[in-house]
């Protein structure tokens, strides 16, 4: 096995996913299969090859430092489930 059930559980928790027992079992199998598939790459000799950071051979896409109009606060908050005082409102996050 390339991945354990405990690791899948951990990754699930990091992604804030509530996984049932059945889902955990199924995902462990699926993720194991994916890792086995990718494992094939290890058959190739990649010595001296720079790791790919981007799929397209492009570099240096820049933007000038000029202010562009954005949203009004009303627009920014228009999809917020809850808002107050021109801000997104969430359950208190600090102890």
């Amino acid at each position, binding site marked *: 096995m390339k991945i354990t059930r405990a690791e899948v559980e951990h990754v699930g928790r990091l992604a804030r996913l509530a996984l049932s027992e059945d889902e955990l079992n199924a995902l462990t199998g699926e993720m194991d299969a994916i890792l086995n598939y990718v494992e094939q790459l290890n058959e190739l000799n990649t010595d001296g090859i720079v790791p790919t950071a981007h799929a397209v051979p492009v570099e240096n896409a820049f933007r000038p430092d000029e202010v562009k109009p954005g949203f009004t606060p009303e627009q920014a908050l228009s999809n917020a489930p809850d808002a107050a*005082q*021109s801000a997104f409102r969430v359950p208190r*996050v600090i102890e």
Partner: protein
Amino acid sequence: MTQPYETVIGLEIHAQLTTNTKIFCGCSTEFGKTPNSQTCPVCLGLPGALPVLNRQVVEFAIKTGLATNCQIAPRSIFARKNYFYPDLPKGYQISQFELPVCEHGWQDIELEGGESKRIGITRIHMEEDAGKLIHGDTPEALGTSLVDLNRACTPLLEIVSEPDMRSADEAISYLKKIHQIVVYLGVCNGNLEEGSFRCDANVSVRPYGQAELGTRAELKNINSFRFIKEAIEHEVERQIDLIESGGKVVQETRLFDSNTGMTRSMRGKEEAHDYRYFPDPDLVPLVIDDSWIDAVRSSLPELPDAKRKRFIEKLGLPEYDAEVLASDRLLANYFDACVTHAKEAKACANWIMGEVLRKLKETDTLIGEVPISPVMLAELLDRIADNTISGKIGKTVFEKMWQTGRGADELIESEGLKQVTDTGAIETLVDEVIAANPDQVAEYLGGKDKLIGFFVGKVMQASQGKANPGMVNQLLIKRLKGN
């Protein structure tokens, strides 16, 4: 108590850059605006929005890297740092992990006693800031947190040091150096209160002689130079007490509370430390060639350390004066401009550190707004140096120059402040004073030499401060003794 433990400190400094816009979108970075009035699909993390790198951020990163002796990476990439927090709309922060833009730098600090110590800089990387959480107490905010995303996506440089510092004082000294450099370069406004310049300290202790580092705690939330010292010193004490009483330091993030001077554990963030970095597919690699680096290098101003050294070695200033004058770029420029026009560097230093700084403070003026230009100050100092006026009258002239913006020569002329160096004129005054104070003359001749000061004062007063004090002194002694 003997101190069998050695303190080890590394600093992570976050400097917010002075760009007009955010790092990946065109929203303004202006501080203190209505919450969420400076946002767009990119910095709100809306689906499908594409971040594009602000070129000025790269320019500032190269600048800072060169100023701190770093190597600039020919190729660097951006990565996603994944964690959930309400101030982070995308669920990840765009940062750099592998291949940061600058590496392997250093900065020297001065220790007590004049020795210097080199602090290693591991890396400098570019990243975006998170939004701001407001934990309001108004009825409608109670039990909730308000999220303002104006700051989200604001460009930061994170400057990471090696664990090279061995005391809170060394940490402060290094921090002040970096602060001075980023402000000199104009890449950061250096405002600690507004959070434009922030510092996290990694602190650990180990028994002297042990090579391996102790377990460290990361201190966050420190927003003044004084608090950093307090926080580190308190944390070192806490760790030593813990070890002495048989406990173990755990690796954790601790918050400094400036009200109590203590640090406290910030629990519940442990699991979040698994950030699962990976290259951000939205951003293409950044390639910086030598011609770009050279262009930035040639635009660098003289840095504070170099300036201080020049003031001492070339201009012969004492170390203290050099330190004060080099500490602020505009102040140093003012001094430099004054020196090129005046005869004596030390006189410029004295007057700028004395009169100019005092006046700035009194009138709440910035050095850039001084009504007396460096050339005008130089003219005034030269008039003192060539005895046209005395130093005392010089202060009066300085005051008038500040108020009117007029030149020294013009004021000396129109106000009739020129020093009297005519022997005959001074002799007349001397004789008058001697004639008017027979008792004091008798006492002086009876051996009370100190009274010479009294006579000089009287003569100076009679001349309205314009007589040359040296000549007054000389003539008085001659006349009194000859009486």
